[in-house]
């Protein structure tokens, strides 16, 4: 079957190009990475969200100063126990910095206010190692030269002050924000410091944001094989570590939507190769460890780590597999997790009946379509009206998405797991797989679903 038009989309027929039902042998990629249809009730975020919220924000020892009216800063404040964990909890994500632009600043320009704000923030938190300044929509319109202000401020306070031109309206989604953050960090931070010493076994983990501590279960696996991690990008990252990542021997790339840019830039400039990996589920995690081990000639060590880790979780996984086999799941994620997790669901005997992404590009959809079964729905940038239709029509046993879709799913009687910031994670690697499976099992079998009036 070709592209299809959902019933709710009859008034906006352009959505047909974004909606595809998989058929083997076809090479159709749904339309993606384009401007959202106005008024369609999209779930997407903005360029600022991709730059500050996803890539920049996790850096743990810099001031994240948002240049604009107050809302943009407020909305990215905190995160608490749920996302982007770091070991600098006394500062990171505890404080929220903004220039809180007022009408007069919009009329007369905000450069002076920004300069003063940088100095004042640094004066109060002199232990920080840098300042990241993020431009919001209105800054692009009034034309503040934030690069110049940041250079001057950096001279004054003697630490890096880095401008990110990530005005919300620039891109069609969060995706351009990732790209801007990659380019800016590469250009202004990577290569500005040297490690004390080098080993032949130095790697970076690129594209993991330490959601509920993912990195704290990922890193030990590589370390157990004898590898040293110079930097992570950007979960629990120090700006100093990012400054030295160019000296690693290999970039291990997890999120393949938000970070291929910096991996390619490092490959070009420093001849530093990168290796895309999936660190979800037993099969994919084991393959990642084997691939990385083969690069360094550490195959035996990898096998030992894999055997040890798998044996630890196997009994529990068998239990969950038995319980979850045959369950039908609809996955809607930012982009790569939608395809990372198709394999993971297969390992549990589950059927992925649909996959969607918020900001995927065609390479993400190629991977989804290659992995997903015939007849499954693949939809780009689904909006809440479409999601409602899909959940009612396809009746999945489980919907995996983010907070904005969570309560909609509940209200439609569909069991739900938050795949963005997790429920009781972390979900990565071996031990995370057990937690992921347990959460899926928990919601699908929750006794209260049986009590819902009108739920068959």
């Amino acid at each position: 079957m070709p592209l299809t038009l959902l019933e709710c989309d009859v008034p906006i027929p352009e959505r047909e190009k974004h909606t595809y039902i998989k058929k083997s042998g076809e090479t159709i990629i749904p339309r993606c990475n384009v401007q959202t249809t106005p008024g369609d009730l999209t779930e997407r975020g903005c360029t600022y969200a991709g730059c500050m919220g996803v890539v920049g924000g996790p850096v743990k020892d810099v001031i994240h100063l948002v240049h604009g009216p107050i809302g943009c800063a407020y909305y990215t404040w905190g995160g608490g126990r749920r996302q982007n964990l770091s070991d600098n909890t006394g500062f990171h994500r505890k404080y929220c910095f903004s220039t809180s632009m007022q009408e007069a600043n919009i009329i007369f320009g905000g450069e002076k206010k920004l300069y003063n704000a940088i100095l004042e923030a640094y004066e109060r938190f002199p232990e920080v190692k840098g300042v990241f300044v993020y431009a919001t929509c209105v800054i692009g319109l009034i034309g503040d030269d934030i690069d110049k202000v940041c250079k001057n401020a950096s001279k004054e306070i003697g630490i890096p002050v880095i401008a990110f031109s990530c005005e919300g309206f620039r891109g069609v989604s969060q995706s351009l924000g990732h790209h801007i953050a990659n380019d800016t960090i590469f250009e202004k931070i990577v290569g500005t410091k040297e490690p004390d010493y080098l080993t032949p076994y130095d790697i970076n983990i690129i594209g993991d944001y330490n959601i509920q501590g993912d990195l704290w279960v990922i890193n030990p696996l590589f370390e157990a094989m004898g590898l040293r991690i110079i930097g992570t990008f950007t979960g629990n990252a120090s700006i100093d570590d990012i400054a030295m990542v160019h000296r690693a021997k290999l970039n291990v790339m997890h999120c393949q939507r938000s970070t291929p840019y910096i991996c390619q830039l490092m490959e070009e400039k420093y001849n530093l190769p990168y290796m895309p990996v999936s660190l979800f589920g037993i099969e994919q995690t084991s393959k990642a460890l084997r691939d990385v081990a083969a690069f360094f000639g550490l195959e035996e060590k990898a096998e030992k780590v894999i055997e040890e880790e798998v044996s630890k979780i196997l009994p529990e996984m068998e239990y969950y597999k038995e319980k979850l086999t045959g369950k039908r799941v609809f996955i809607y994620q930012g982009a790569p997790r939608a395809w990372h997790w198709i394999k993971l669901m297969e390992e549990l005997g589950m059927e992925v009946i649909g996959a969607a992404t918020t900001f995927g590009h065609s390479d993400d959809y190629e991977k989804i379509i290659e992995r997903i079964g015939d007849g499954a729905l693949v939809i780009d940038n689904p909006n809440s009206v479409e999601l409602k239709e899909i959940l009612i029509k396809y009746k999945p046993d489980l919907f995996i998405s983010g907070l904005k879709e969570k309560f909609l799913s509940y209200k439609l009687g569909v069991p739900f797991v938050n795949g963005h910031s997790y429920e009781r994670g972390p979900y990565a690697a071996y031990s995370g797989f057990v937690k992921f499976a347990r959460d899926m099992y928990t919601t699908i079998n929750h006794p209260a679903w049986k009590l819902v009036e009108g739920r068959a």
Partner: protein
Amino acid sequence: MSQTKTKRSVTINPGMLCQPIGAMQAVLGVHAAIPLVHGSQGCAAYPMRMFNRHFAEPAEIALSSLGEDAAVFGGADNLVKGVHALAARRHPELIAVVTTCLSETIGDDVDGILRKVDLPVKLVPMHTPSYVGSHVTGYDNAVKALVTHLAEQTGPNSKINVTVGLLDPGDIKELKSMLGMMRVKAIILTDITGAFDAPLILPRPPFPDGGTTVGEIRDTANSIGSIALSKHAGGAAVKYLEMKHKVPMIAGACPIGVENTDAFLDNVSQLTGRPVPDELRKERGRLIDAIIDVQFKVAQKKVAVFADPDVASGMARFVHELGMDPVIVATGTESKEFVKDVQAIASQTGHEIEIILGCDLYELHEAIKRVGVDLLMGNTHGKSIADDEKIAFARLGFPVYDRVGYQRIPIIGYNGGINLVDRIANAILDHADAA
């Protein structure tokens, strides 16, 4: 008494949000209404997430999806296309176009654009540039826009209008209960219990049941009077109704605590001629009983309150009624009216109150260190201050998402007061246990 106002260029841990989210909350209290944000993607996605976290409910918010082209050439095409798409797919009764810093700076003539749209749906423009005011003024502007565009004199209706402000579904239920006991018919502006206190029953209706209807908003011009529970968030609407439609208005203190609730009920009585019934007198008696019961647990404790202006000033008086000492009263929204309100409380009660205006939480934290405080009351973001200073913490305001259920528990009226007595006393007891 002293009044502090930060002179910093940097805001650290803000005490307010921007105007659009306040407007969206007001619109979501209208039945079958959808806010359409005229801005970039984050302007809808972020507020949606904030509502999800605080209310544990879905929130339907549309967007005109302004991109780079719109920033250069204007957003009229996006807006017109957006309104049509939304009307055709969702069939709402009302679409409120909520502007942002982006669309206001581009300079789109939203009112003019909407006038040319011919659709069987009420279109209400709401001007809420993010660089003016706060979420509180955004709410105020939104409710004013609703009555300005809809209210219509047809004939007396023997109801009163009550604008709520940025209170929770629990508060609105309590308000309805009080008015019900007085047998007063009211139009509530706006009633978010439909959207944000919805049952899980299948099939789900196309729009949540409940909420203020468009017809009710139209009818506000015919009411016998209006009361603003939060003068900063809803006050502009009742003023407009008085000016334009001669509906007498009262904008007193937010009914938090004994005297503020007494005054509110007296006002309802005065407008409607209905006496305050025995049932409510008994509720009052229960609140006072609860206050007396905890006196030795809470008396003389020094309290810092930070919240939106009307909740903060209402709370300040209640803190006094509890025999506690309101030493700091802070709000993120700039307002001379707020300063006057708190000054009046200070002079009537004899407390030395430090007022912090346009406050961020960094400023509040510095003040708490300077003054010395036993209990902090405020939203989720106050928790880290209480932890750092090792003082008791009682949650209040928006957003509260580090604990569950706060949106369900009223703080207004006598019953709300009882809830607050328990919350405050238990916070102090829990803190003493942990120490």
